[in-house]
């Protein structure tokens, strides 16, 4: 009982002790227990609504401040920087040569034809569809994070105070809380999956494993203060299928696994990641590949098909884009996952950038830096739509099927549907595109009708075939290549 006796000058210790106890009790009651049971008090949604009101107020203040000083607020150009002519090659060349000049008889070359190509070239240097997808999206209003502020010259004193308060709240209160939760979540995952792994295979083990996984992912979701809205849950992926989704960040996995059990696919890692992988695979069937096996497409395809054929196993989760895109568009899907021939369950994930930018720009931030930024943002708000299952139709090849799925995901999530390959983040475009334009120009000179039935040169999304590292798309844990 000695610890009950507090000496007088340990008032401080007593206070600290009490506050720690209170802190942990609150944590337990409001966060961990609901996570275990799968219920929610709705605290996060109230938090989100309060934040939105504050952001709107902040933006109004900034606009007012800017107007007083007669400046212009920087507005992000979400529709592109320049106006591009929608007219085609033929139209422009006709115009250049003047209406009425005949192109038919003798193929002629006009010096001025070069204007068209010159202008198009410089237009694409100033603004193109692909490169801007690889950097973070810009916001219309300020969300009190320095990292997304472009109008900092217009901050009044009140706004500065608010920002300071926000800083203290985020780094002093939210960040430690989240780190604690994350550590708890991962620790529990490791311990409990190992324990469940000792049980004999059977229904009990599967059931427990499901519960354990869900619980730990729920704790992780609270560790990120992720506020997720799931739509159309009747379309949730079922056993024996593949779930495909657009990829913005490694956190996508946690967001999806929060609501259902999936089998992850990925490379075997070392370090903490490897420990987690080994623990996870003890209690439920995940597919981890050795680094050397990843290059062998047949092996990969076979393992995936075997998994899918077994109806008692969970659906596989795959991200076919192969890399992280900034959540304004969906890029080309790699066809490997669509060749297996099973039902595909598309899922669209759209993040709300006002509360925290979830996009992982792997060339700018490492993993730890990224997680730190995530945990010191306000929240991660996203919507998940489960789309109706799709199957490959008669006469459709894998690429066409992949494009169909991609279009559905883009339409649902409100994202731009692009044909370009996400691998263009790091690689170059094929030369065949240049030849296409050359052919087109030649036809204009000779005066033929445009041939509509030519092969689509963008079949590979623009990449040289040897530069495609894997046709399975991005697999969980493949961060080393991202």
């Amino acid at each position: 009982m000695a610890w009950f006796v507090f000496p007088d000058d340990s008032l401080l210790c007593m206070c600290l002790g009490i506050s720690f106890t209170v802190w942990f009790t609150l944590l337990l009651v409001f966060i961990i227990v609901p996570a275990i049971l799968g219920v929610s008090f709705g605290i996060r949604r109230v938090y989100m609504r309060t934040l939105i009101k504050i952001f709107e107020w902040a933006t109004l203040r900034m606009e007012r401040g800017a107007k007083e000083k007669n400046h212009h607020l920087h507005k992000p150009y979400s529709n592109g920087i320049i106006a591009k002519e929608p007219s085609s090659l033929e139209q422009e060349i006709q115009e250049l040569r003047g209406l009425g000049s005949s192109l038919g008889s003798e193929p002629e070359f006009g010096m001025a034809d070069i204007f068209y190509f010159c202008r198009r070239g410089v237009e694409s240097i100033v603004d193109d569809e692909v490169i801007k997808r690889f950097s973070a999206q810009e916001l219309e209003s300020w969300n009190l994070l320095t990292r997304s502020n472009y109008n900092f010259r217009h901050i009044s004193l009140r706004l500065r105070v608010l920002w300071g308060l926000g800083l203290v709240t985020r780094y002093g209160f939210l960040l430690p809380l989240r780190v604690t939760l994350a550590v708890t979540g991962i620790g529990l995952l490791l311990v409990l999956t190992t324990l469940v792994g000792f049980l004999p295979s059977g229904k009990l083990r599967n059931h427990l494993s499901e519960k354990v996984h869900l619980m730990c992912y729920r704790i992780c979701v609270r560790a990120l203060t992720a506020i997720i809205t799931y739509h159309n849950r009747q379309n949730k992926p079922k056993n024996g299928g593949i779930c495909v989704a657009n990829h913005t960040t490694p956190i996508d996995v946690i967001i999806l696994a929060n609501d259902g059990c999936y089998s992850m696919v990925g490379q075997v890692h070392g370090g903490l990641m490897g420990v987690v992988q080994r623990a996870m695979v003890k209690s439920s069937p995940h597919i981890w590949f050795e680094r050397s096996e990843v290059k062998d497409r047949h092996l990969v395809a076979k393992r995936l098909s075997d998994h899918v054929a077994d109806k008692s196993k969970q659906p596989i989760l795959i991200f076919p884009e192969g890399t992280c895109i900034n959540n304004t568009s969906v890029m080309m899907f790699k066809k490997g996952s669509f060749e297996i021939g099973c039902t595909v369950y598309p899922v669209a994930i759209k993040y709300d950038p006002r509360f925290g930018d979830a996009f992982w720009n792997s060339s700018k931030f490492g993993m730890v830096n990224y997680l730190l930024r995530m945990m010191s943002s306000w929240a991660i708000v996203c919507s998940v739509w489960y789309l109706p299952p799709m199957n490959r139709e008669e006469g459709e090849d894998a690429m066409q099927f992949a494009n169909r799925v991609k279009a559905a995901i883009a339409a649902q999530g409100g994202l731009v549907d692009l044909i370009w390959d996400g691998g263009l983040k790091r690689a170059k475009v094929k030369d065949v595109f240049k030849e296409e334009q050359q052919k087109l120009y030649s036809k204009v000179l000779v005066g033929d009708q445009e041939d509509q039935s030519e092969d689509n040169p963008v079949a590979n999304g623009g990449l040289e075939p040897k530069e495609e590292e894997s046709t399975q798309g991005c697999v969980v844990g493949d961060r080393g290549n991202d």
Partner: protein
Amino acid sequence: MAQEGLFNVGFLTFPGRCVGEDIVSWNKIIGIMGALHSMAGGPAYLDLSEKTGFSLEQIGILHKRFKQLSHNEETLLREDFNTIPDLACNPIRTQIIEAFFDRRNFQQNAEGTVQEIGFEEFLVVMSYFRPPSQHMTEEQRENVRKEKLRFLFNMHDTDNDGTITLEEYRHVVEELLSHSGALGKETAKGIADAAMLEVASISMGHMEPDEIYEGITFDHFLKLLEEFEIESRMNIRFLNMDTTNLCK
């Protein structure tokens, strides 16, 4: 061009006349002009704006684009341009990229090529494509036209001898045409020769049988293209262009 009446500089309103050049000096003195986004940007942007004729807002946008293309480095290399997929489709992309690294286009009266360019050089080359401003004298318009045509001329004249020879011309035509498909290689060559002949006949008039045509000089080039309206064809239109309207 001068206008009578009230004009605004920032939040100050002055009665009086405003003339084109005066505005720039007024703004330098008072230091208020449009939106200044970046901390380092301020005074440097003013200089660039004066030199290239872009507004401060446009310079800010182009600076962000520069950083995007160069992956946050200080200079751009040729490889950075190769990462743009739309540009890869363009048959004359090599010439366009070379134009950015050609010192003749930097308005410094220098020659040769460089390996990397900074933001200032990028902006100077982009200024050949800036949208035409409304208030320009005939002389200024003529100058702008000459500059743009000079840019095009430099793009063809790769060895910088002041003339576009048949070889250089043929090279450009071949780049534009396809090696396979509708036109064979011989036809492409034929087209280039025919075009060159036409150019010769326009600029030299009637030639003696044994006279050799040297090549297209810049004056011939100007004469060839005098009826083409280049201002509207060779410029980039910025969306929501917020030209600070100082003369009211």
